[in-house]
């Protein structure tokens, strides 16, 4: 009996040390997918950024750093980066605060899987459907949101309507940020909720014994202990938020508008990349912007990881 156990452990050890071939075969399917659909296109995109590749002709010449030089002086690029940044601040700000509130409430108040499922519903909808839905609801002429604001009445808060959210340069980015907050809050809340579940209930019990209020417990227990999870969630959502595209393309295009409008107020960086590639056929320049965007996002992520000390936990 003892001998057999020992032998098993021993053979396990052999398998672990010689596990590469096994691991390789297990990893192969995703390695192929990663290589074909991610790694190779990335390398090709990197290469294209040094060319004047024309999308239609599917041909181009090597131009060295020409695209990057143009980019450094491209006001539209800076403008669209600022637009994107404004969107990310609004979207991540509102979405994270709401998600933490919902997650804490779920953690402290209910275990219902039904409520968790309902939270996920907006996240399950395709982006184009979301965009069309809100395009109708936020319309200045027949939109239900305007009818609602008028009915409440919220004129003292928002000013006199009707509000043309997608036709007003000052409102279009907040409107899109709000739509994506609506879509992703539930999903973000679930991620945070999963993190909250790892905090031992005994800590709360001890705090309650000491007479701590819910608010104190949130500030001194919940927030510090879920920092690593929050860091991960923020990295994921911020990177995702920078990539906003389909809602802008569909909702600001509308029925008679111009995607990215009005007056380029919603031309986010992905839309600018899309315009250069698809409308102007300038795949090389679009690739250069994409490369710069990747570098910016890597930087943002690194800063976040460092500031939030994502690698360490106070739970240990």
């Amino acid at each position: 009996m003892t001998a057999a156990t020992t032998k098993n452990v021993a053979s396990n050890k052999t398998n672990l040390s010689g596990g590469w071939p096994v691991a390789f075969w297990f990893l192969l399917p995703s390695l192929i997918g990663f290589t074909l659909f991610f790694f190779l296109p990335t390398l090709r995109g990197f290469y294209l950024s040094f060319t004047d590749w024309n999308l239609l002709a599917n041909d181009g010449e090597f131009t060295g750093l020409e695209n990057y030089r143009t980019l450094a002086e491209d006001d539209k690029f800076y403008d669209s980066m600022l637009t994107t940044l404004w969107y990310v601040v609004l979207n991540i700000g509102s979405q994270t605060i709401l998600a933490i509130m919902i997650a804490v409430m779920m953690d402290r108040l209910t275990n219902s899987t039904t409520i968790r499922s309902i939270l996920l519903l907006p996240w399950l909808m395709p982006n184009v459907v979301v965009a069309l839905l809100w395009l109708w609801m936020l319309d200045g002429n027949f939109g239900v949101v305007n009818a609602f604001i008028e009915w409440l009445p919220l004129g003292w808060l928002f000013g006199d309507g009707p509000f043309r959210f997608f036709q007003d340069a000052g409102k279009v980015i907040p409107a899109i940020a709000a739509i994506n907050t609506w879509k992703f809050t539930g999903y973000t809340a679930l991620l945070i909720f999963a993190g909250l579940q790892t905090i031992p209930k005994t800590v709360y019990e001890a705090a309650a014994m000491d007479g701590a209020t819910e608010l104190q417990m949130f500030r001194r227990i919940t927030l510090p202990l879920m920092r690593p999870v929050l860091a991960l969630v923020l990295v994921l959502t911020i990177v995702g938020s920078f990539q906003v595209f389909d809602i802008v393309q569909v909702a600001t295009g509308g029925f008679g508008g111009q995607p990215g409008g009005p007056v380029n107020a919603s031309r986010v960086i992905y839309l600018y990349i899309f315009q250069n590639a698809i409308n102007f056929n300038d795949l090389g320049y679009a690739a250069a912007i994409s490369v710069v965007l990747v570098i910016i996002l890597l930087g943002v992520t690194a800063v976040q990881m460092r500031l939030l000390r994502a690698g360490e936990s106070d739970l240990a």
Partner: protein
Amino acid sequence: MRNKTLRLFAALLALAMVAAACGGGDDDGGGTASGEAPSFDEPVEIDYWLWDANQQPFYEQCAADFTANVQPNITVKVEQFGWGDYWTGLTAAFASESAPDVFTDHLARYPEFVESGVLVSLNDFVDRDGVDVNQYFPGLAELWTSPDGDRFGLPKDFDTIAMVTNTDMLADAGITIEDFASAEWNPQDGGTWGELIQRLTIDANGVRGNEDGFDPSNVAVYGFGLEGAFGAFGQTTFSSFAASNGYVATDEPWANEANFGDAELAETIQFFADWIEAGYVTPIEDVESLGGTTIFQEGGAATQTNGSWMISTLSGDATTVPVAYAPLPVGPIGERRSMFNGLADSITTSAENPDAAWEWVKYMASPACQEVIGEGAVVFPAIPSATKIAQDAHNANGVDVSAFTVHVDDGTTFLFPINDSASRVEDAVGPVMQQILRGEGTAADLLPAAAEEVNSILGG
């Protein structure tokens, strides 16, 4: 050892990638016509794209006739995509080398295709088969010739612009269609045309735009509805007015500079911005969100300008608004002006059998097919005799379309300002037009900067 295998594997993959990246575009396609017309012994299928769903049945009829009577071994598959999807789809199809053999081409788009080298020059085909390019309305065939002298399309139809009016609203205001036909416009006070528009405007209290107490902030029916966002060239919106004010967008086709800084344009755009502010013209925000034609058809505007390709939609069975057409107003230059735009069929370098594709293009540009299109009464075919058929068909339906054709008869048309960077020019000017029409700046202040940007695009 295994590490080496992995490295080798990775290196091979990288190599394959480089090969894939550099290997594209090995087939430069493009057939040129040989000395004599080929015969088609093997069955050939031609993919043909168009965007106008209203014309699809008639081109399918043409395709059937073509196979039955002209080239039994060539069959044509007609595919239709909506205007917006059409161009994105076409770009994607070119990029993936799965473009149709033949497609309906637009003057605003084809120069960019030419620059990218994805269209087949038709010169050798035209010479070989002796196609008479003078059988079309004057000027139409030349629109499709590049500065190098290469022809990239054979004309299929043309379009002009006219005033579209809601006859019920005209009758209520005591205005006849003849009043519009004889109206004059100027960018200062709108002229007699402006007076008609003011009379047709009604606020929520029923006060007309020309009466005391008119409330411009609460308008029920606008006298004039913009067809859409202005964009750079404003085919269906401002172009006729600007041209009748003496504005010329580009001095010649394929020009290296444009005249977006001209005072004649600024005056015209400012006129519309001021009249939106004054409550006589539909706010641009409503036009962007609802679409100008929708507003007109829902009775939100008494008149609009629109293109001849919309006749069957505006006067069709499905409409509730009774419509009559009037020629555009006479402007300060003493004449009316309508943009004269034409479509053509182009052959792509993706065409597997350019000779067969040419046979189909040639057939569509011939009287046999254009007469079928004319009977469909959707557009005006490029051949005068076929346009006569279209006019007769409209008349038989009780629709008077002379307001559109009068521009051709009188020679009061101007050509679409063909240039090789239409999408970049649109991107530079479109947002500025949005700004002006929202009253966020005057045309005189904002257009010169846009003009400078356009000239650097065209000159570069």
